[in-house]
């Protein structure tokens, strides 16, 4: 939303969706504040302040001045709270809650069709009683270098003086960074400072050498902090203490150098950096990072298991005691099974029912329909389907866009529907179902549909298709092209095409894809496919020379050492006998024109890969292991064989090129059919 719009037009749908999301965020924000009690962490207060500020902005832009006024009043209260002008007392938190409730009511009135709702008693008056002047603020006397003192914002000054009152030590971390890598160095130092205490502000410094960049971080450290260690972790040039508070026994110009450990008056105990997991009804909430750490460990364990398997086999081969050999193998088989179960179990911790997402969609749908004057039902099936928590959060925006599109351009007005012989009430059905390692979300509306010929004609008119370009095989794919969506009047011809390129971009970034099909007159179906676990793909990593490749685990049938004689030549083509099947075989180095390695002699590792229809065998130099990898797609403009789809970092720092199993299998089959010796 970038320009003012009148209430009541299509943008009120957008406003409602956005306002609802902000209110939900604010609701979580105040819950978090309640959980923090009397000494809330500043980032919690700031987050809530920013959310309400955004809501004010959005309401103001669309012209809902009543909502903007109320949000402004609440924002002012939150500003007082974050600046320490009012205490974080239960009464004040209650006031914030009242404010949020009032805002929710106003937004609901917009959804019900009200032009410009306004509170009868301004929220400002209702919150007035809460804003009793806090105890007179002591002017913070910070002994900072004067140029820094001048650049402190009110908020930073408040945090600094607050830190002083709580017995924390204020230090200035001086950074002197290489121009080449200053951003990484600065980020690292800021992360370290935040980990060690509260990072109050970051200020530019003066570098002695023009090829270097200097910064200063103002940090509040809890008593007992190891300043020397912080300096080392930040790669700081210097860390000097500056004191806060009212007492200023020494002249303000010369900062005091701190001993390596900050000694301070005993202060009230601090809450730990992570709030204790909340336990409710047998549910444990765990931060995602902890789950990620567990998933990583499971991957490492799987690797250790494989390594043990290899050496154990060799060690046992020479063992004379058959009984002991059998016992060892049995114990290893059990370990193997357990480890294989652990990885998926850890990954499953990230999954939540898709219901958390669809509930949000249903609410936004009802409000948008009301705003647009549509009568329509939203029917959801498969809410128990599980999806990665991060995906459930990130999918909200693009899916809302698809829903709004269906309501705005698909579902006709009740009158139009009646005239076309359809029920007055329209219907959008969402079916969610797992398919392999992916989740498919299908949106079907029974609206007016999209005319393929109209889309192609429009694309020619707007220049997306040149005069000599043939009609595309997939005309609906044009809807997702960036140029297409800017043609606003397309909705008169096709009924679609506003901002769908953004939807596709977002879904692609999440590792998903979207397609559409439509029957003019009877409706449109969007199919959104996303990975169940966010981009983490169990992959087999193999190596050829010093090039690493990753194959999706689901495309690997088996890996084995090809014994002498397992490779036959049938009709002049190298083949690998896998059970009853003779599979075409290729050396990966030959396939990609990599320098041929001198034959090591003996058995070589062979990976049998399959794409669901066919299989092929690949000779590699080494099988490095199985990891859950974050595979990143490579842009089309990067020249490469089309079997290489992307790249992923392997634990340890190597980069593996991600192979597209379908293209790879096809390549081996065709290379083999053309009689080329692999």
């Amino acid at each position, binding site marked *: 939303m970038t320009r003012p719009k009148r209430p009541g037009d299509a943008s009120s749908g957008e406003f409602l969706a956005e306002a609802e999301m902000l209110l939900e965020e604010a609701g979580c924000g105040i819950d978090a504040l309640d959980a923090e009690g009397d000494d809330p962490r500043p980032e919690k207060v700031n987050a809530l302040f920013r959310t309400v500020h955004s809501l004010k902005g959005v309401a103001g832009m669309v012209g809902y001045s009543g909502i903007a006024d109320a949000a402004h009043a609440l924002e002012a209260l939150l500003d007082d709270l974050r600046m320490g002008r009012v205490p974080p007392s239960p009464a004040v938190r209650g006031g914030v809650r009242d404010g949020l409730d009032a805002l929710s009511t106003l937004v609901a009135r917009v959804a019900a069709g009200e032009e410009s709702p306004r509170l009868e008693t301004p929220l400002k008056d209702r919150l007035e009683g809460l804003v009793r002047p806090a105890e007179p603020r002591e002017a913070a006397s910070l002994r900072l270098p004067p140029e820094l003192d001048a650049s402190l914002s009110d908020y930073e000054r408040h945090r600094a003086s607050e830190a002083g009152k709580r017995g924390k030590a204020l230090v200035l971390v001086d950074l002197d960074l290489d121009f*080449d890598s200053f951003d990484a160095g600065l980020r690292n130092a800021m992360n370290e400072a935040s980990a060690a205490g509260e990072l109050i502000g970051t200020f530019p410094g003066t570098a002695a050498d023009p090829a270097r960049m200097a910064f200063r971080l103002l940090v509040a450290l809890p008593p007992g902090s190891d300043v020397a260690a912080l300096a080392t972790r930040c790669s700081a040039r210097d860390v000097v203490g500056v004191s806060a508070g009212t007492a200023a026994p020494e002249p303000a110009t010369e900062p005091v150098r701190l001993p390596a450990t900050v000694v301070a008056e005993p202060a009230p105990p601090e809450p730990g950096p992570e709030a204790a997991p909340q336990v409710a009804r047998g549910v444990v909430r765990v931060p995602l990072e902890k789950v990620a750490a567990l998933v990583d460990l499971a991957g490492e364990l799987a690797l250790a298991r494989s390594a043990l398997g290899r050496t154990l086999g060799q060690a046992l081969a020479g063992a004379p005691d058959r009984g002991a050999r059998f016992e060892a193998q049995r114990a290893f088989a059990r370990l193997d099974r357990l480890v294989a179960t652990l990885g998926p179990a850890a990954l499953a911790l990230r999954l939540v029912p898709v219901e958390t997402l669809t509930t949000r969609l249903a609410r936004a749908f009802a409000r948008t329909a009301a705003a647009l004057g549509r009568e329509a039902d939203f029917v959801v099936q498969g809410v128990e389907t599980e999806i990665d928590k991060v995906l459930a959060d990130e999918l909200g925006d693009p899916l809302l866009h698809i829903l709004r599109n269906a309501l705005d351009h698909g579902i006709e007005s009740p009158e139009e529907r009646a005239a076309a012989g359809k029920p007055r009430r329209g219907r959008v059905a969402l079916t969610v179902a797992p398919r392999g390692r992916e989740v498919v979300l299908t949106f079907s509306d029974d609206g007016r549909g999209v005319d393929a010929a109209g889309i192609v004609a429009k694309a020619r008119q707007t220049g997306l298709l040149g005069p000599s370009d043939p009609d595309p095989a997939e005309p609906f794919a044009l809807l997702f092209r960036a140029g297409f969506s800017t043609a606003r009047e397309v909705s008169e011809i096709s009924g679609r095409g506003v901002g769908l390129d953004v939807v596709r971009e977002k879904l692609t970034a999440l590792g998903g894809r979207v397609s559409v099909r439509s029957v003019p007159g009877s409706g449109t179906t969007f199919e959104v496919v996303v990975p169940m676990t966010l981009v983490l793909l169990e992959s087999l990593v193999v190596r050829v020379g010093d090039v690493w490749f990753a194959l999706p685990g689901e495309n690997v049938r088996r890996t084995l050492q090809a014994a002498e004689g397992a490779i036959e030549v049938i009709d002049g083509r190298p083949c690998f006998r896998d059970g009853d099947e003779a599979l075409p075989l290729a050396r990966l180095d030959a396939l*990609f024109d990599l320098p041929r390695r001198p034959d090591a002699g003996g058995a070589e590792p062979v990976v049998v890969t399959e794409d669901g229809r066919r299989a092929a065998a690949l000779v590699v130099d080494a099988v490095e292991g199985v990891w859950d990898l974050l595979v990143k797609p490579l*842009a089309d*403009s*990067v020249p490469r064989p089309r079997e*290489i789809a992307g790249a992923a970092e392997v634990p340890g*720092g190597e*980069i593996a090129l991600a192979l597209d199993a379908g293209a790879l299998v096809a390549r081996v089959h065709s290379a083999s059919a053309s009689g080329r010796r692999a």
Partner: protein
Amino acid sequence: MSDDGLLLAFRAGGERFAVPLERVREAARPRRIAPLPGAPPEWSGVALVRGEALGVIDVAAAMGLPRSPAKPAPLVVVLYGTDHALLVDSIDGVETCPADRVAPPPPGRGALRGIVAEESGFLSLLDVDRLAAKGEG
């Protein structure tokens, strides 16, 4: 040839090059660049920067100089508007370039916008879009 503008100047293959500062997203040191089989010689490979997979163009090789040798923590300049990064030896810094000092590039020197004569040699202004497009061809 070009407006007076801010440039990021760097060295590759022993020569000085520059790109418009506004096209530079960041300088980064990825842990490594994975060679890309089948890619033309001016493509150094793939690097992961902030979790993004970028095609890396070896500026030296693209300019007809010997290919840059592989080394740990290579230095790349990540560009806006492309999915690419430039492999360079070192960064000289931000420089200004008066438009009237830019001479048209000598023919056959590749994707250049122009060159600027300096006390000891030349500063070559790279044409970022043609450089990336050259790799595609």
